[in-house]
Structure formats: C-alpha cells, structure tokens
C-alpha cells in the first residue's frame, strides 16, 4: 500500500526521497518531510496505540504536539530508547524503528482490553476507593498490578549515553512560535535592529501556514501565495545577523523576570547523528521583551465512541492533506461547531475524499466557508449531533441524530458508513506560557476560551493564542506586537503591517459534551484521551460533591496526563459547568505548569553528570592517601580517607589496627577539611563573646579552647577549637560540613546586627593543611622537625598554640587532641602540606607512625565521649543535653542562644541527655539510630526514651560502646534499658559517655 494514500503532488514532502521505517516490525515507507504520524496514515495505519486505562484501540487525533493518543517509542539501541513520543512530532528518518505501547501481546489483539469491559468497576476515584485496606497490600499487591496493567511506555534499560548541552543568552525580543503572527512579530522587531530569537517546536518555521494549500487555493499575503511569503520572510530573517532562528525548539517554561526555557532537539531527526553532537540543547533565554505567538489548538467534540481510530481533528486532517499530501480516508463525516471544519472538508474534497455529510450542531451555518462548501456540493446538515460510532480497530460508521429547537435530541438515528470522521469544536488559544508567566486570563465567550488579559511580565501575546484567528488579523496583530516589543526594548516603534486581503473569520466554538438522547448508549464519550477520562467520570465526581475544578481534576485525573489536557481542559470545564449549572469562568481554570511538552531529563542535567555532577574537594595529601591504599568516603564535598587497609584487610581489622596504633604508639591523620575562619579586628573578642557560648576575654594569646556555637533558638549549631593567636585575632575551626554556614551566620551578625563592631571574617579552610599527630609518641615524632618552639609538656601544655616552623616552612602548631591521647595538629600552608606530611611520616617510622582515617578518628573520639555535631546533635540538642554546659560563659550578658537557654523547657529534667551505653553482651554492636526503650519487647505504640547516636566496637576496650541521647539520661546511670536489634531487644546499661581515660591523664601526657 506504499504511497497509495497520497495526492500526486504538492505538500512539503520530498517525493524524490523515500525513507524506510518500521512500526512494530512492519517495514513501511514514507518521504522526507514526513512525521511518523503522516507516514503511518499514508500507509493506511490508523491504529497506533492502546489507551492508558481501558486499553482501547487508539489512532492519531492531531497533527502537532497536542496529540494525546499516538504515543510511540522510538528505538535506536537499548540505551537510546525513547518512550511516549508523540508520533505527530517524530520526524521520519531512514531506518527509524518505532513501536506501539501499552499492548500485549499485539496492538490489534490486546489482553488488557478486558479493562474496557470491566470499566463499570473502574470509575473515577477507583484507586482511592478500592485499594484502601489493608495498607500493606498496597505495596505488595495493588500497586505492582496496577502498574503492570496501566501505564504507557517503558523506560530504557540502560543509562542515557547521549550528551546534552546548555546555553544562557540574552536578547531584546524573544518570539515564541513561528506561525504567521510570530514571523510578523520577529520581522517587525528585527527591522528596527532588535536582537531577536524566534523559536518554534516544529521542524519548519511557518506554523499554521505549513498546513495551507498551495497553488490556486493558497491564501494570499502581500499579494503573493502564503508559501512564497513564508520563504521570503524566513530568508530575510536568516540573513539578519541579529536574528536567531531556532526550529525544533520548544519553549517549555516561563520563569520570573522574563527567563524562558527552550529545549532544542538537535539530532533526533537524523538517521546518523554525529557522535560528537549533543542530542539536545537547553537554552535559558533572558529576554527584554517576549512575544508569545503560540497559536491555538483545535478542540475535539465529546460524543459516545469519539476515540476510535479514524476520528481526527478537522484541522489536523487538513494538515495531513495539504502539508504531507496524505489522504487520511476515503469517506468522511464531518461533525462541527466551528466554520473551520468546512475549510477542512473543502480541502479533503479537493484531494478526492468523499464527504458523506457535514453535520453542524449549530442552528445556522451561513458563514463564507459554509457557503463555499454548499457551492461545492457538499451536504450540510445543521442542528445535527453525533450519538455513536462503530468499528473495532477503525471507525466504520457513525450515528447522527437531529437536535430539536428546544436543544433536545429528537428520536431516530441516521447511520452513516465512513472510514474517517473530522471533528471541530473550535480553537483553544495556547495560553500555557502566558499563564506560567503569572499573567491573568479572561473568558472570551465568543471563542468559548480563556484568553490573555493582564500581563505580569514584559510579555504580549499575538495571533490565535489570544483569540485572533483570521489570517489578516493575525499578521497585523503579530507585526504590531513585534513593533511594540522592540519599542519597549528601546528601539523605534514602527507599526509595520503586511497587506493582506480579508480572510474568512473562524466563528464558532463548543465546550462540553454534544447533546445526546436521554437513553445512554453505554458508549464512552471521552474528554481526556490520554488519561481515559469520560463524561461519566466527571459526572460522577460532581455527583459525589466535588465542586472545585482543581479537585475534580485530581479525582478524575482529567488533564493530568503528559499532554496536560491540551485537547481536553476546555471540554472538561464546559461539561462540569453544565453539571454544576455555573458559568465556566465561575468553575475556574486549573493551573498551567511547565513543561509545555515533556522534556528529556538529560536536557536539565546538561553537562552536570558523572564526574561533573558535583565538585570534588580533595586535601593536600589526597594523592598520597590514594597511593597508600586509602578507602575514601564523601564528607560534604570532600573526599576523606576513611581507612588504610593493609594486605587486603577488612575494614574492621584496619580500623582496629589504626585505633590501637594511636592508643599505643602514634598515628597521623589529615584534618585539613576542618573549616577555618580567621576572626580579626579590635572588636574580635567582643564578637566572639557574642557569637559563641564561651568566655573568650580570659583566653590568653597562645591558648585555645573548645568553642560551642548555638543558633538563637538555643540549640547546638557547630563546634570546634578556637585559638587566640593575637589580642585581636582568633583562629576559629568549625566542623567539616559546617564551615560555609558558620561563616554565613557570622557574616549575617557582623553585617546586619553589629555593624558597629570592627571585625573582619576570612575563610582560611583551604589555606591551611592540618596534620594531626596523635599518640603517646607524638612528641618524639615531632621533636626533630619543629623549629623555634619548645614542645615539652611544661612549655606547651594541652590546648596551647604557637607559631613556628617545620621542615623550613611556617607553621601554626596546636597542642590539641580529638583522640584523648597526647596530640598535636600541625598547620602549614596548604601547598607545603604533602611535603610536611611525608617528612613527619618518615620521621615517625622509628616510632611506628600509622596513618589513620576518619573511621578510626570516629572510634577514638567516641571512646572519649567527644560529640560530633550532626551525629550526637540534630538541631534539638542544647549544650547541657550534650554535657557541654561547662563551656558556657556564665557571666556574659548575652550570646547567641542565651535567651532560649533560659526557657524552663530547656532545663527540664526529662530532656534527652548524652549518655554511654554498654550492651550486656560486650560483643554486640548496636545500630546507630536505633530507639532506646524502658522495657523489653513492648507492644506498639512504644514511646522510646531516646536513640543511639554513635556505636562502634572499641579495640582498646575489647567491647562495644555506644553514645545515646536518653530522656533524663544522666539520672539513669547504671540503669538497665533496652535497644532493639535485628535479633530482638537487647539489654544495655546506662553509663558515662566517657569510656576511656576519664581522668584525662593521657591527654596531658
């Protein structure tokens, strides 16, 4: 049947370039310029898919992006498999492989179609009503079954191998839509020198003009055929270097301040895309002025059996004939409430399609188009409605009935055989982007549509997207919008208008369901094709008391499919309006959301995937650690060495060895990721007193102190050692993850609360490499390397700080310990970090120096009961809860969080307090996060006393240890509580959170 269903000449296809393609494995042929939809129709294929819920046979309804039915998958390989594409937008290329969806075992025989027979049992809200109980069955039983039975395309089975790029660009005037209005607007703006971007979702610019007949019947613009005007207009724009033309580019979203997201498809239409070419490019266009020329979408009519293959929108059928040279059927019935359908009937008649009748639901049809149809001998019946259709896989007949003067359907039907039905309920302006821009819409009674009223952004609409339909008026509207936009962008506002003869105005529109006889035929009348929503579903929703269109939408899912109700929303509104006996504007309108049509995830990800997904921060010793076999973990953006396994050690063995090395000899640890903030100025100490809970005035130069930072709500925000390095200078350390937010909080107070303080804050996190040397031998390791500092126990006690040199480079040396052992932290400029690390490591060999990672660091600090912010704290922990009340400077008049700590609830005896837990079985290691309970094996509901915050096996104690936040914990010392484990509740004993060396003798060694 190849090519049999084409007109001999005309259209925008290239008959010299046949293209082979397959649909469900059948080899077919189309032409260059075809879409998959037009090529299928040319091959007589109307059945292209099964519907979402009822698995009903479905065909091609439309010719553009509004297509709700003809969703297909296009496969290049297992990874390049794109489901749910609209066949009307898939450009044909040689070798294209397309598959229908939602059918098994085959498209013409689909088991799931039994859902159609079961449909009385699947009404609106079915999921909500039926699958309520038992709760557990939802996950195991209902959901998998529903998902298997319903749903549309399948996901590709492999990661997307294609590249996606993105671009930011500014322009004076962005014109969305390159139909007559958009072309006129872009030309007018470009003529006065504006930088213009003109984008259109189609492969060719021209919009509705592409669907017009050429030759003698062509519409005239400026004295020439529309096609010639189109060629010349595009040519002029192409030659203007200030104009960018973007076909295959969908404006998918309108964001504040005139930012419009464009998605440009670069390779999907190519048989052999260049491997280096990105598949899609996302544009973020910041436009001075925007002109929306997004056109209008023809509205289907709602009647029983309106979803059979072979039932098309009238304008779509016209496009198939005129643009693609396709004859979509041999015997057509037209049902309409709009004059435009007569134009379609005339064009199809010219192409040799037999027009059985034009049924017009209106009482009168005397417009110029209707007159032309009559003159051409086409039968016209007014006051006629369509009450039923037949044909299993394609429509084969319709039933028409007369409408009486009272608007009621008169008994008796006329059955009319046909293989094609054209319908038109008028046109719905595409106000999606305008509405996304927060512009206000107004109801246009004549067009039975919402149209743009009040702009919120610098945007104007032109042409049929604002209810202007006649070509002459559309061109004029576009030109004046383009001129005005350029004028507002600072260019001359010259109202340039193309001269066009007056054209036939399109009159008539219909929203809702067509009149039906009182007796229901039992056939479904679809409102939303893609989500299988019928008039019955909407009637049920209103009967059950739903009034808001937003609720009705969610209850019935009308307008919630991937097409966002492009063809269905107005009919749903019209139907509900009649049910509720309220005018449409009072029923309201659902929200338009981006994207206008689905956008590939890859286009949003752009280059930010794989290694480029997130920045990676590495410390100065990263490469050394990698060479020495470190296993890394992610700590915020940092890569930190977690442990250094030797000879295939398992993690627990490596961590135990590292821990014992620190306790018995010496360990070396990279602490460079700690946040570091230099606080400088004559008011530095005042600032520190106000920010941190501690008393800083008494801290001498050369000494450091453990600082605690609260939020003003009294809860711990961060902690770290703070050293005073000069009278007016503090070296503040923060947690690794908290560095940025602590600096931001400090800046907030400095800039906005205390601008009178003379203090400056500088992040120095990445300027310092920090090498912790910890363990009984730490001093001996450093003795030979440190210059200019006496590091003896007497001269440099715990918590002292001194500048000096090491290996010839400047150093700030901290006597500090996060392990409970004698310890130092060597701070050197980051560039020297690796060399100094290697020197210390070499010098430590005779003392058995052992590199250790964050896991051993965690165990060592937990053995000492040192908290980690974010692990022992969760934003509801006060200093007293964490056992840190000693840090608070009691005599300070104020500090951040002080007032909140005075609240009675913050001192309640049953607050969760930090304690240690010993499991009765010393070898059981609890799970972190597990609940702590008063009694064993309680029946739910159980109110836990608290939870385990840290839990490890302690190598030095040869037993498990855990830290926990427990209600009234400090008063429960020695008490037996219970913690759940996968093997049941186990008894634990409440103990001090300091498990090792509680006197601190080792620390001060």
């Amino acid at each position, binding site marked *: 049947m190849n090519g049999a269903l084409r007109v001999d000449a005309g259209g925008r296809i290239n008959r010299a370039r046949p293209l082979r393609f397959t649909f469900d494995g059948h080899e077919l042929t189309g032409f260059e310029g075809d879409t998959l939809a037009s090529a299928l129709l040319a091959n007589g294929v109307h059945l292209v898919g099964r519907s979402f819920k009822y698995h009903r046979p479905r065909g091609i309804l439309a010719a553009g992006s509004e297509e709700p039915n003809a969703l297909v998958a296009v496969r290049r390989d297992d990874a390049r498999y794109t489901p749910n594409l609209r066949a009307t937008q898939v450009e044909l290329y040689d070798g294209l492989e397309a598959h229908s969806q939602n059918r098994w075992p085959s498209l013409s025989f689909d088991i799931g179609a039994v859902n159609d027979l079961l449909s009385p049992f699947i009404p609106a809200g079915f999921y909500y009503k039926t699958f309520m109980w038992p709760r557990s069955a939802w996950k195991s039983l209902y959901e998998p079954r529903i998902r298997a039975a319903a749903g549309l395309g399948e996901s590709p089975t492999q990661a997307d191998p294609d590249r996606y790029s993105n671009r930011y660009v500014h322009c004076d005037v962005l014109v969305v839509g390159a139909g007559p209005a958009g072309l006129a607007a872009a030309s007018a703006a470009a003529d006065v020198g504006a930088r213009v971007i003109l984008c259109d979702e189609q492969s060719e610019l021209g919009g509705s003009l592409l669907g017009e007949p050429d030759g003698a019947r062509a519409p005239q613009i400026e004295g020439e055929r529309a096609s010639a005007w189109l060629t010349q207009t595009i040519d002029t724009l192409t030659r203007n270097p200030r104009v960018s033309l973007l076909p295959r580019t969908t404006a998918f979203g309108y*964001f*504040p*301040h005139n*930012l419009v997201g464009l998605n440009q498809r670069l390779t999907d239409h190519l048989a052999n895309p260049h491997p280096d070419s990105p598949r899609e490019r996302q544009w*973020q266009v*910041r436009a001075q002025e925007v002109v929306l020329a997004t056109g209008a979408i023809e509205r289907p009519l709602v009647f029983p059996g309106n979803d059979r293959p072979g039932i098309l929108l009238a304008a779509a059928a016209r496009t198939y004939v005129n643009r693609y040279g396709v004859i979509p059927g041999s015997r057509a019935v037209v049902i309409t409430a709009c004059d435009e359908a007569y134009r379609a009937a005339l064009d199809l008649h010219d192409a040799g399609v037999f027009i059985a009748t034009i049924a017009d639901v209106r009482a009168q049809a005397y417009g110029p188009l209707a007159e032309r149809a009559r003159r051409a001998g086409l039968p016209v019946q007014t006051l006629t409605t369509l009450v039923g259709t037949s044909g299993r896989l394609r429509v084969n007949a319709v039933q028409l009935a007369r409408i009486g003067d009272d608007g009621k359907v008169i008994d008796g039907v006329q059955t009319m055989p046909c293989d094609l039905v054209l319908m038109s309920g008028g046109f719905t302006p595409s106000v999606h982007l305008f509405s996304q821009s*927060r512009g206000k819409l107004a109801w246009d009674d004549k067009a039975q549509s919402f149209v743009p009223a009040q702009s*919120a*952004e610098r945007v104007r609409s032109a042409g049929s997207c604002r209810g202007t339909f006649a070509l002459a008026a559309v061109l004029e509207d576009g030109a004046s919008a383009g001129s005005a936009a350029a004028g507002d962008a600072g260019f001359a506002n010259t109202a340039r208008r193309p001269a066009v003869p007056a054209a036939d105005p399109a009159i008539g529109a219909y929203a809702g369901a067509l009149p039906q006889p009182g007796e229901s035929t039992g056939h479904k009348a679809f409102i939303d094709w893609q989500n299988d929503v019928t008039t019955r579903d909407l009637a049920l929703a209103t009967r059950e008391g739903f009034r808001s269109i937003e609720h009705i939408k969610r209850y019935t899912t009308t307008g919630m499919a991937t097409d966002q109700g492009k063809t269905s929303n107005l009919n749903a509104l019209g139907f509900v309006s009649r049910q509720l006996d309220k005018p449409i504007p009072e029923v309201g309108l659902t929200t338009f959301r981006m994207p206008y049509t689905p956008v590939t995830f890859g286009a949003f990800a752009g280059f930010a995937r794989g290694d480029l997904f997130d920045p990676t921060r590495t410390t100065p010793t990263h490469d050394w650690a990698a060479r020495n076999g470190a296993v890394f973990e992610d700590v915020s953006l940092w890569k930190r060495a977690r442990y250094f396994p030797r000879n295939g050690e398992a993690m627990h063995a490596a961590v135990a060895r590292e821990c014992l090395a620190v306790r018995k000899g010496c360990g070396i640890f990279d602490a460079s990721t700690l946040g570091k903030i230099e606080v400088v100025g004559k008011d530095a100490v005042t600032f520190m007193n106000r920010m941190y809970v501690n008393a800083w005035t008494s801290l001498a130069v050369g000494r450091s102190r453990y600082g605690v930072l609260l939020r*003003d*709500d009294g809860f711990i925000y961060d902690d770290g050692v703070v050293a005073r390095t000069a009278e007016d200078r503090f070296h503040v350390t923060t947690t690794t993850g908290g560095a940025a937010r602590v600096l*931001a909080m400090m*800046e*907030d*107070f400095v*800039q*906005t*609360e205390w*601008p009178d303080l003379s203090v400056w804050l500088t992040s120095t996190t990445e300027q310092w490499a920090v090498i912790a040397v910890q363990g009984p031998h730490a001093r001996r390791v450093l003795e030979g390397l440190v210059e200019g500092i006496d590091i003896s126990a007497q001269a440099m006690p715990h918590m002292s700080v001194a500048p000096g040199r090491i290996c010839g480079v400047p150093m700030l040396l901290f006597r500090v310990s996060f392990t409970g052992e004698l310890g130092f932290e060597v701070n050197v400029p980051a560039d020297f970090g690796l060399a100094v690390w290697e020197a210390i490591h070499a010098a430590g060999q005779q003392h058995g120096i052992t590199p250790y990672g964050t896991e051993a660091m965690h165990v060592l600090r937990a053995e000492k009961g040192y908290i980690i912010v974010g692990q022992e704290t969760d934003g509801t922990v006060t200093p007293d809860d964490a056992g840190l009340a000693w840090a608070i400077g009691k005599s300070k*008049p*104020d500090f951040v969080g*002080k*007032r*909140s700590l*005075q*609240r009675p609830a913050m001192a309640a005896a049953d607050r969760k307090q930090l304690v240690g837990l010993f499991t009765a079985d010393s070898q059981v290691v609890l799970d972190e996060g597990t609940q702590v309970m008063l009694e064993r094996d309680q029946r739910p509901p159980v109110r836990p006393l608290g939870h385990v915050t840290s839990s490890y096996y302690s190598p030095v104690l040869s037993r498990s240890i855990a830290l926990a936040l427990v209600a009234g914990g400090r008063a429960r010392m020695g008490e037996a509580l219970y913690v759940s484990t996968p093997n049941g509740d186990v008894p634990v004993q409440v103990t001090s959170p300091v498990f090792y060396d509680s006197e601190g003798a080792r620390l001060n060694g």
Partner: protein
Amino acid sequence: MLLIECPYCGERPELEFVYGGQAHIARPQNAPDLSAQAWSDYLYQRDNTKGIHAERWRHTHGCGRFFNALRDTTTDHFIAIYKVGEAAPAALKTRKVAL
C-alpha cells in the same frame, strides 16, 4: 530564576544569591531580659505576605554583602533594593517586634 540587582555589583542571576528571610527584624539588644512571648515572636513569627514584602538577600557568590529588597510576592518583581541599615522605602508597613 530571578534577576536580582545587588546594590554593590549590579544585576545578577538568583543563583549567586542566598535568601535571608524577612527584613527589619532586629535582634533585640536586651535579649536575656525579654519575655518569653517577645523572644518567641522574634525567633519564630514572620509575615506571610501576599503583596509587597521586605526581605533580605545576600550576594553570597559575589561580594558577600547582605542587602534588603521589596518584592511583590504575587509577581516576584522587585520594587526596591536598598542597603542594610536603610529604612524601607515609604508606603511599606513593616512589622515591629514587640519588645
């Protein structure tokens, strides 16, 4: 993505900024003496304005400075940008913390 005019750097995309919540909520000087109600109001009570809202922004990935702005929450359009310490442009009612 908003376009925000930093008073120190000029117009920049929202990506460079961090939102700072409602403006003109000064931390009370005498915090430790405040009643529980007054302190709670300072900590937790914020306007949920439909219309013109005075708010703080920080040009984090730029000059690092905080500044204030009047934004219409119904359109996201900025009506005014002004520096910390300056009064909000006239005709704006800002809620005062009960002290």
